[in-house]
């Protein structure tokens, strides 16, 4: 009586005895690959290999270097989003946190502003001036700026978290409003201008590489610095989720908030934490993106939101809470970036790129559904299997 109930009989898998042993072996291998939670990784690798056969350039040093420089900043954002998704929320404000931290940080550390562009700025003469921001020109500009950005991001994230946990507002609306507000604020405090003249140490984070490989057209960076930032964050995130009390609490809150409260989990605090982490990661992503583009920009990341959530969902992180691993976030990002890059490589029309991307997301989701069905062995009719 405690069995899960579904209404379909399990299809008996044909006449098993008549199958040859090889066929069985195949079934096991395919079954393993399909059912493993690294499926998305296998899918990405398979996808890469198949395309590589036709497009040798896909595996060129320069392209690999591009891939790697595109993966890490996005991974940072997806990891942050994952924390919020695990507690059953959603953070739409990541993009605007990127924008606001980008301009605040840049205003802090810029070593010179064009008075013609910035004189109308509300902060002009108070906080910033012709000689740049408060920390402009100082030796410690880069670390100060980064710390400032991370602090702002975490603060905004915590504010979102407080609104969700304490004021019991729906996460979707809280973060949507926060998205409007902070992107508006970012534009407001810069009067639409991008902030330039950032210290070299800051720019190095997003632009420099460790090790270079010579190619026909100049050398190509091997490992971007952003990799180390993402790696450190991923390890820390993994540690928190898998090895700490907070990690267990995060999952518990996402699976059943009421049961968690009764069991003594400080639910409100855990939720605030999750949003704070998301804000922190958005700020870190902002550091990487801003330094890669060499300016603090009020419109940073305006269009990256759906990529973040798409990558998270493709990786297998549930929108309903309680499920998510750093590994999965990485697979999702890998798949997304690879897909994007390969579609450009195929040199399709820009509109075809969109269409193909949509179809591929659907196919990937469908594969996931089928996998789940096989794994469960029965079909819950009428219910969308959660990714």
């Amino acid at each position, binding site marked *: 009586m*405690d069995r899960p109930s579904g*209404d379909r009989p399990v299809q008996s898998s044909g006449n098993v005895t008549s199958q040859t042993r090889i066929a069985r072996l195949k079934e096991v291998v395919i079954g393993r690959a399909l059912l493993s939670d690294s499926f998305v990784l296998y899918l990405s690798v398979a996808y890469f290999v198949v395309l590589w056969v036709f497009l040798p350039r896909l595996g060129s040093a320069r392209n690999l270097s591009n891939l790697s420089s595109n993966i890490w900043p996005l991974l940072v954002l997806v990891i942050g989003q994952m924390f919020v998704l695990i507690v059953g929320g959603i953070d739409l404000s990541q993009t605007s946190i990127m924008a606001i931290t980008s301009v605040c940080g840049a205003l802090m550390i810029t070593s010179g502003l064009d008075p013609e562009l910035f004189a109308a700025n509300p902060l002009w003469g108070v906080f910033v001036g012709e000689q740049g921001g408060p920390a402009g020109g100082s030796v410690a500009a880069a670390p100060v700026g980064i710390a400032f950005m991370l602090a702002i991001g975490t603060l905004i994230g915590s504010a979102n978290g407080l609104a969700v946990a304490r004021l019991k507002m729906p996460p979707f609306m809280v973060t949507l409003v926060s998205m409007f507000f902070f992107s508006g604020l970012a534009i407001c405090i810069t009067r639409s201008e991008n902030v330039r003249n950032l210290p070299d140490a800051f720019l190095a984070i997003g632009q420099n590489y460790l090790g270079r490989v010579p190619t026909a057209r100049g050398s190509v960076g091997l490992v971007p610095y952003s990799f180390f930032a993402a790696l450190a964050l991923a390890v820390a995130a993994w540690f928190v989720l898998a090895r700490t009390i907070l990690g267990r609490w995060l999952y518990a809150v996402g699976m059943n908030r009421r049961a968690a409260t*009764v069991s*003594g989990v400080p639910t409100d605090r855990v939720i605030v934490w999750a949003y704070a982490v998301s804000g922190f990661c958005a700020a870190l992503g902002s550091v990487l993106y801003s330094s890669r583009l060499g300016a603090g920009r009020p419109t940073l990341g305006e269009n990256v939101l759906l990529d973040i959530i798409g990558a998270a969902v493709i990786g297998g992180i549930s929108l309903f809470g309680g499920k998510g691993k750093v590994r999965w976030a990485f697979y999702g990002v890998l798949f997304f970036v690879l897909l994007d890059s390969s579609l450009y490589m195929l040199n399709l029309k820009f509109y075809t790129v969109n269409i193909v991307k949509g179809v591929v997301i659907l196919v990937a989701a469908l594969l996931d559904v089928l996998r789940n069905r096989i794994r469960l062995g029965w079909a819950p009719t009428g219910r969308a299997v959660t990714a």
Partner: protein
Amino acid sequence: MSEPILQFEHVSKSFFGAMALTDITLAVRPGMVLGLVGENGAGKSTLMNILGGVIASDEGQIRLEGRPYSTGSPAEATRAGIAFIHQELNLFSHLSILDNLFIDGFPRIGRTPLIHRREAVRRAKEALAAVNLSISPRTRVDRLTPGQKQLVEIAKALHGGAQIIIFDEPTTSLTSRETERLFALIERLRREGRTILYISHVLADVLRLADEIAVLRDGKVVRTGPKAEFDINAMIAAMVGRQVDQLHPIRRGKPADKVLMSVAGVTEPGIVKDISFDLHEGEILGLFGLMGSGRTELGRILFGLDPFRSGTIDMCGQPRRRRTARRSIAAGMAFVTEDRREEGLLMEAPVTENMALVALPNCRRNRVPGTLDRLALRRSVDEMIASLKIKCVSPRTAAVKSLSGGNQQKTVIGKWLLGRPMVCILDEPTRGIDVGARYEVYSIINDLADRGNGLLCISSELEELMGICDSLLVMSKGRICGRFRRDEFDKERILAAAFEGHLERGPRGSSGASN
């Protein structure tokens, strides 16, 4: 003797290769109440789910009035005249009774798709009258008491023209009064010639209602026969496969004098009023009351989940203000909630994860703040699983929702025990679990008391409390209306106390305890 209305012929069903039902053959005559008993996991619900079209059988067939009947969906079962009243009522609580009654098809105005409201209300009133329920059909279901919800569900079945009605554990959330009403209704339905399949763990109820009884064990029918052939012990013997002498373990220990928790004058307007009692070391204190007497609410207030306006709650002599569940746990309290699914367990998580939840802060590694000593945690969880005899194939991976009710409940209890509490509040600790598991839960409670814990058992089953408690508090309308020591236990006096206030005032009540 009439032809059987319903026959199961060699029905089998397996999940994940494990046989849930093996070769079930059973015949039911019209106008009869068949009592279906068995332990959790014996296959009762699986069998009924097949009949109700929720799942399909692997082999065998079902005949309805002699004709083969194959189940496709709950909707088809309804059309075939089979109604299934689930243990967890299948009602939409945000919708009205009207919506719930007609959700699979409203009466319409002519050929338009528009709902014929007047007609629907008229029919709904009829349907409700048939179950003696006089409430406006427009009332929202979440405003009803559990008993009323049950009646709505039955009204829905009858209104759908059901000839065969399956009741799965119908009395778990009913007060004794509501249970009586339900039984009278079932009796009437039987007289009208409808066939009833009645599943319950409350064997006394089965014995009282059923004409015939079928006992299931491990997916097989082990014994069938008319009621006269059974008594409670015979049923239990057939269910568990051996003789069971008693339902409750013998209570040996005696409460000590030391007070663990002292409650004085706790009041929250509209909920509870002027609650005072002491809980001693080694004491099992029962809290009995009818549904809505405030017993569960008191438990929640004591544990710090809900606020209260005045009064004090002392733990070990320390008064505590600004109470939260977290602080209560830190002070040595545990709270096994009434609702396992909503407040007790993370249904998607495995047993180990659930068990560890409360004890997490106790398993800190000192070197790195906030990190878990996973080894210590795993060891203590494993020990607890073993000591509570939780049966689960893979406690580390299988979601706890795949466990039987008894094992789920043991998981909840184990979770709290890992927190090493001094005071445990248990709200309906045996709801929806079978005889064998009940006995185990009682034993655990007993052991805890023997080890010096104080326990507060909240229950609506008086026999249960009389069987295990040292003393009893009786609540009615938010107040304590009676205190009984074990040597004073008397069913009638306790019930009289529980009905106090209900008997004096009219059904509408005055504004009650609201001021």
